[in-house]
């Protein structure tokens, strides 16, 4: 067997063969810049066609529910005139039970069109089941590489369920121990099979999610005669934020605020064998949300199509206990059960709606399926076995990996505003180090301003503070 070094040395060659017609070098514009919009346009399918491709494989056109009971409850604890109308897009109704079907649909359509025999995807999340489901429907073979176990062979119930589902949908599932070498192994599998790389981060994946944002924008405008004031998006790798925001813009919602939400797991290392099973969320958390925002190209393709800092207006953190509370509350007041990780933005919707006027509309843009393993009782039972303390109390007393605090009442749900400026600063520090920047071209400057949605000299101030010239 080849070593990690051997495989990583062939990285570019393997990727080129496995990504169909995308030659990422065509989009490079020198130095740190590349033409993001040209990369996105490479997909080439107009929205009408994207929607129709998704319909072919049981994706999209999911219900948009007005959460009347939850809205009423929130108004009971809000100041007079406050308490926005809360809507939710029930993405659990897609073929494999999450919005990830949107992300897989175009990739698999493209893989089939280009004559590949199968696809490989590296993911521990719902995306694996989505790829497997779409592969079955398109007549393609499917291999999923998942990070599942710690070195003792113990896995989170939520991930075990995701593995079961991939197997049920006919995939060959490689269940791996903790570590970033997941990507080395998926490269090896791509090399061995010659299959298509159904990476989460290609323009096909993001274009598929744009359909979700587009549907939300069009449906809200049709039903309520106005744009959503804000859309809450669970943020991890950045694709959900990027795709939804772009789709909203395409639907003509130019004033909708884009709010990313992650579960606060700061202090736990994502690649640590011992921390691995001390977290009760396997996605939608800061362990992905922060590093992928500040260094989007740390992925299995040369340039990541998911670039959340281009779109985010706010980034909020909430605690694990608040999400479990919101999940239970949602079931009890709205009469439907949905999986916990997809409810990250639901938890933030409660304090955010309280601050907004009654006539405004707040959209929670996804749900995910629930079942054995993917349920608060399963995750909390597992957490207790791992020695995590679970109590009722003030969510402020939450300590990731040590204590989960389930709020005692609805009023206690709140959020921490993570300063976007801090993320943008880290982005610049990281990028300047990576590219060893001494001076910038005007093209690179413009690229950075677009990357960071910078309208007020944030980048220029940074350059001046570092003594970097641009010309």
């Amino acid at each position, binding site marked *: 067997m080849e070593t*990690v070094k051997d495989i990583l040395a062939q990285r570019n060659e393997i990727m080129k063969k496995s990504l169909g017609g995308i030659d990422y070098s065509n989009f490079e514009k020198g130095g740190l810049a590349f033409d993001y919009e040209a990369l996105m346009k490479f997909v080439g399918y107009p929205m009408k066609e994207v929607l129709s491709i998704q319909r072919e494989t049981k994706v999209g056109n999911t219900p948009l529910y007005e959460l009347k009971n939850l809205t009423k409850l929130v108004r009971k604890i809000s100041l007079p005139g406050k308490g926005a109308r809360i809507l939710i897009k029930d993405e659990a109704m897609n073929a494999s039970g999450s919005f990830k079907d949107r992300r897989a649909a175009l990739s698999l359509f493209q893989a089939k069109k280009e004559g590949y025999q199968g696809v490989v995807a590296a993911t521990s999340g719902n995306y694996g089941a989505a790829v497997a489901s779409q592969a079955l429907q398109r007549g393609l073979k499917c291999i999923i590489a998942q990070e599942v176990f710690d070195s003792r062979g113990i896995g989170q*119930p939520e991930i075990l369920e995701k593995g079961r589902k991939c197997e049920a949908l006919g995939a060959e599932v490689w269940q791996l*121990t903790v570590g970033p*070498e997941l990507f080395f192994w998926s490269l090896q599998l791509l090399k061995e099979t010659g299959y298509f790389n159904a990476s989460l981060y290609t323009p096909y994946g993001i274009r598929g999610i744009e359909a979700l944002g587009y549907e939300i924008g069009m449906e809200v405008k049709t039903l309520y005669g106005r744009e959503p004031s804000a859309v809450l998006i669970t943020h991890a790798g950045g694709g959900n934020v990027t795709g939804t925001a772009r789709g909203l813009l395409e639907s003509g919602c130019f004033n909708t605020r884009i709010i990313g939400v992650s579960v606060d797991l700061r202090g736990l290392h994502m690649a640590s064998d011992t921390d691995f099973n001390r977290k009760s969320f396997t996605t939608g958390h800061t362990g992905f949300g922060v590093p992928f925002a500040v260094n989007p190209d740390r992925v299995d393709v040369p340039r990541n199509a998911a670039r959340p800092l281009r779109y985010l207006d706010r980034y909020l953190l909430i605690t694990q206990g608040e999400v479990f509370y919101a999940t239970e509350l949602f079931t009890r007041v709205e009469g439907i059960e949905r999986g916990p990780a997809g409810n990250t933005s639901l938890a933030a919707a409660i304090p955010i709606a309280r601050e907004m006027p009654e006539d405004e509309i707040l959209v929670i843009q996804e749900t995910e399926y629930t079942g054995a393993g993917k349920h608060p009782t399963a995750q*909390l*039972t597992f957490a207790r076995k791992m020695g995590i303390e679970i109590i009722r109390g003030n969510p402020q007393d939450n300590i990731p990996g040590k204590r989960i605090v389930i709020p005692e009442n609805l009023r206690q749900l709140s959020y921490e505003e993570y300063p976007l400026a801090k993320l943008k600063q880290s982005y610049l520090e990281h990028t300047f180090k990576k590219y060893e920047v001494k001076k910038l071209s005007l093209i690179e400057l413009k690229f950075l301003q677009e990357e960071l949605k910078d309208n007020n000299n944030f980048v220029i101030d940074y350059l001046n503070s570092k003594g970097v010239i641009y010309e």
Partner: protein
Amino acid sequence: MLKNELIKKDSYVEIKILLLKPEERIEGIPEDTSKVPFEARIKGFLVKDAYIGEKVEIITALKRVVSGILIAVNPPFKHDFGEPVRELLEIGWEVDELWKQ
């Protein structure tokens, strides 16, 4: 399942594969992770009769042949809904109270 029990060919089994020894792992990973091997588990149909712990070949869901150490026969899905969680059960009655306010 006894270690000395012969597992018949064509049984549905799980194997474990050592992909990287600790010293072969990439740089920059946390210390605890760097001390343990990088391993895979995969399921499929056993090619020849074998005992647990032996190196075997299996046929995967995609009919590919993969080899590794035999660790289980007909491995069950053990994840479930867990135990009832009192801290969550309480929320239902609290919501009833909130409606009355």
